[in-house]
């Protein structure tokens, strides 16, 4: 991936003063977030901290009460979700696939707004990258195992050729073996210049990240280099102490 001089100078995504919630319930309180080109940022925080809400607010799936979001120099607040996606943000939700569609249909929908020939070409590339999916391309995504479903949702998100991949708990519901596989795949994508924002509770994903943010009670409690996080005593105890190994209990 190549970047223009302006893109190298300014961050890929800059969100400031985000306030959002559901109905009368405020979830995010003045959240700031920056992601540089080809940077991987991990978003940590306990359940209910507002991680999913933050991701959804960036995508426009949750209405923003206040704040501004800039992506590649463009303001995103007034745009619909699909318009934001077309600007180069791919979103991988916890569900991630359409269970009533086949693997191939899911994958091709990932490139819904690309020209038909481009979709074919990229689908072939992704089948090479995700060989498990090729033989079963006619199978309904709903019949896949959790791990295969995650791989499909990753392939589907990557289909559009995004600049930023936003992921909500990619480890959810996966066995440790599959978590390792997902991490390996993400490292490969990151190595190719893809920026990432990963909301996670599984600390195995920390190795991918250059920077980490901790969200608690809808506020950013820490934002900085991963090494700074690892050296911070209090944070280390509250995050690393509790979860040293990949979370296998939820599989």
């Amino acid at each position, binding site marked *: 991936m190549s970047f223009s001089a302006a893109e190298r100078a300014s961050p890929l995504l800059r969100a400031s003063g985000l306030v959002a919630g559901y109905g009368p319930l405020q979830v995010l309180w003045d959240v700031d977030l920056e992601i540089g080109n080809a940077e991987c940022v991990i978003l940590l925080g306990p359940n209910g901290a507002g991680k999913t809400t933050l991701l*959804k607010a960036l995508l426009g799936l949750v209405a923003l009460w206040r704040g501004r979001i800039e992506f590649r120099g463009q303001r995103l607040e007034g745009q619909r*979700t699909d318009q934001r996606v077309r600007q180069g943000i791919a979103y991988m*939700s916890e569900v991630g696939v359409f269970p*009533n569609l086949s693997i191939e*249909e899911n994958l091709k929908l990932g490139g819904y707004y690309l020209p038909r020939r481009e979709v074919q070409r990229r689908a072939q590339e992704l089948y090479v990258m995700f060989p498990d999916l090729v033989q079963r391309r006619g199978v309904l995504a709903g019949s896949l195992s959790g791990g295969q479903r995650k791989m499909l949702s990753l392939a589907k998100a990557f289909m559009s050729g995004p600049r930023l991949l936003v992921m909500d708990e990619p480890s959810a519901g996966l066995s440790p073996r599959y978590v390792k596989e997902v991490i390996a795949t993400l490292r490969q994508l990151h190595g190719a210049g893809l920026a990432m924002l990963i909301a996670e509770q599984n600390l195995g994903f920390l190795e991918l990240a250059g920077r980490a943010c901790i969200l608690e009670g809808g506020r950013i409690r820490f934002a900085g280099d991963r090494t700074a996080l690892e050296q911070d005593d209090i944070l280390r105890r509250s995050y690393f102490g509790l979860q040293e190994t990949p979370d296998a209990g939820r599989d």
Partner: protein
Amino acid sequence: MIAYTLLAGLLFGLYFSLVALGLNLVFGVMRLINLAHGDFLMLGAFLAYGLYSSAGVNPVYAIPAEIVAFVLVGVALYYAVVPRLLSSRDPEMLSFILLFGLSQIIEALAVIAFGNSQRAIPATVFGIRPVSLFGQTFPAAWVVSAVVSAAAILAVYFYLYRSRLGHATRAVMASRDEAASTGINVHRVSAIALGAGLALAAVAGAFSPFMLGSIEPDMGIGITTVSFAVIVIGSLGNPLGTVLGGLVYGLGLMLMETYFPSWADLLPYVLLILILLIRPSGLLGKRVRLA
């Protein structure tokens, strides 16, 4: 006798599939029951009647006009109402009130515009010779209606399963949020689906004079009820499940009219209660539905 009843049941079954197909398509995409479905069918019937009485247009040739007119109506109705409806606090309840009101308004306006008298298109537009099927003879109008219905069902199949737009439509059926974050313009896809749903109702309306009796402005509510029964029997939210529901209903109707004619009007309600007791997710449903 029984062979005639069963074959007639299949012809009517195909037709009732078409009658209900649009309702199920709209429910699948928008998760709301279009209570004005039958009224749009009525409007489609009056459009066909108008084209026939003023210019002698055969209902089969009226189909393109029906499709164009009602796709436009559906798309306009979608953008006028649905986005605001879906962002309201209680879209389900609000949609019931709104669509019930729309149904009443359409009916009232139709009474003003067309009067309360019954209209008909003579079945002789399809010729006076009956058609012979497997040794039984049927009015040509029944066979034409069934053939048109089968063609419309096939068209819906190709739309949903063989086109890019159809894949996006099924994606929206699975989850609006997931579809939007895949880059699909959910509003555009839904607006087209509502247009297609109304167009299907209107095409069914063009053949209603031959299959449902005379055309009148207050025919809508009864048709909405029958359509609802058909899609619940098949599978709510699964458009092609409608075909199974339609066939069950058509066969049931013909059997009732042959053997218990005075009870035939009760059929939709009886079938609805039976299916809800025995298999609440519909004959093709996999699990109890959530919506």
